């Protein structure tokens, strides 16, 4: 039980996928201008990642095995792409606004390096099914967490007297850097 907890804490905070591993920066910068959007993106990514981690474990373990290891990346991409397609259709139906706002970033979850990265890290770390699922879920929760926090800061910065050349993405990059700096405080907490 406690190792599951450690995996969760570790992926959400200590080895945060965005702030520490610096994966998935594309949606992190792209759809964090508004709190609701960030939350929507986080939720979509969480869905894809959790499902993707589980599915890719099953594929890796039961389908590919050691002899077909060279198919790992390929098959993972296919599975993730399928799940993303499914998510896209579901969101388009249930929340057209969110669909419009997420725009290109929704299909781009497919190429979100965090989404591919986590299943690959799972393989590398030889996680079992439950661990893979938790690792994926934790990573996605960590992603959502920093997305939402970041969006909060960006919303506040809208009113700030930021120098013209730093307005928009530039100051967001600086903020992401300083957030990453802060997350270094967690280093060493969980091995």
């Amino acid at each position, binding site marked *: 039980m406690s190792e599951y907890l450690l995996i969760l804490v570790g992926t959400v905070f200590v080895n945060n996928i965005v702030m520490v591993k610096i994966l998935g920066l594309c949606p992190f910068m792209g*759809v964090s*201008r*508004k709190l609701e*959007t960030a939350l929507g993106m986080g939720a979509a990514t969480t869905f894809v990642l959790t499902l993707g981690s589980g599915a890719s474990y099953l*594929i890796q373990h039961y*389908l*590919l095995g050691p*002899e*077909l290891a060279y*198919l790992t990346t*390929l*098959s993972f991409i*296919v*599975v993730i*792409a*399928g799940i993303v*397609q*499914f998510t896209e*259709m*579901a969101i*388009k*139906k249930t929340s*057209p*606004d969110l669909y*419009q*706002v*997420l*725009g290109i970033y929704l299909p781009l979850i497919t190429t979100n390096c965090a989404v591919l990265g986590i299943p690959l890290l799972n393989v590398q770390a030889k996680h079992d099914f439950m661990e893979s699922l938790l690792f994926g879920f934790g990573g996605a929760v960590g992603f959502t967490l920093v997305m939402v926090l970041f969006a909060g800061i960006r919303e506040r910065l809208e009113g700030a*007297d930021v120098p013209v050349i730093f307005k928009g993405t530039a100051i967001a990059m600086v903020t992401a850097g300083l957030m990453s700096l802060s997350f270094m405080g967690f280093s060493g907490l969980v091995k």
Partner: protein
Amino acid sequence: MISALWVMIGISLLLGAVLGYSSIKFKVEGNPLVEKIDAVLPQTQCGQCGYPGCKPYAEAIAKGEIGINKCPPGGEEGIQKLADLLGVEFQPFGEGAAPKGKAVAFIDEQTCIGCTLCIQACPVDAIAGAAKQMHTIIASECTGCELCLPPCPVDCITMESIGENITNWKWRHPVIIPIKVAA
């Protein structure tokens, strides 16, 4: 090699089946976005965007056929609202498309010959009158679209800008000296 092929084919078939099913399950009828865009547009029905009215422009935006900066009556704020709604970047107005001040049409009743051409042009039925009768603008309904100007054969319609008065007066954004004035 053969097993690899089988594996990939298997995965593809499975995913194909799931996606095929969900594409039926999650089928979306129409585009609910058009209503949302239309609600943001100022409804002057002026056609300055190149579309015959606000709704067609909204449909075009929803399809992604045209930019969001084609509506001068909506002002920059209108663009900003569209940008927020659609999650795209703000686009400034193109050359010569800058918004004008608010105005209403005014018919010089001395000159009007009662030809009803302007009545037919008005998109919101804000001109009252009949053939051979002098026409007049219902100022409270006029959107200031200027569509009645070109058809008038005697050029008796002018645009009167709405000045500031005690009822539409607004408080100004306070000017903070150290922020606004460069050192």
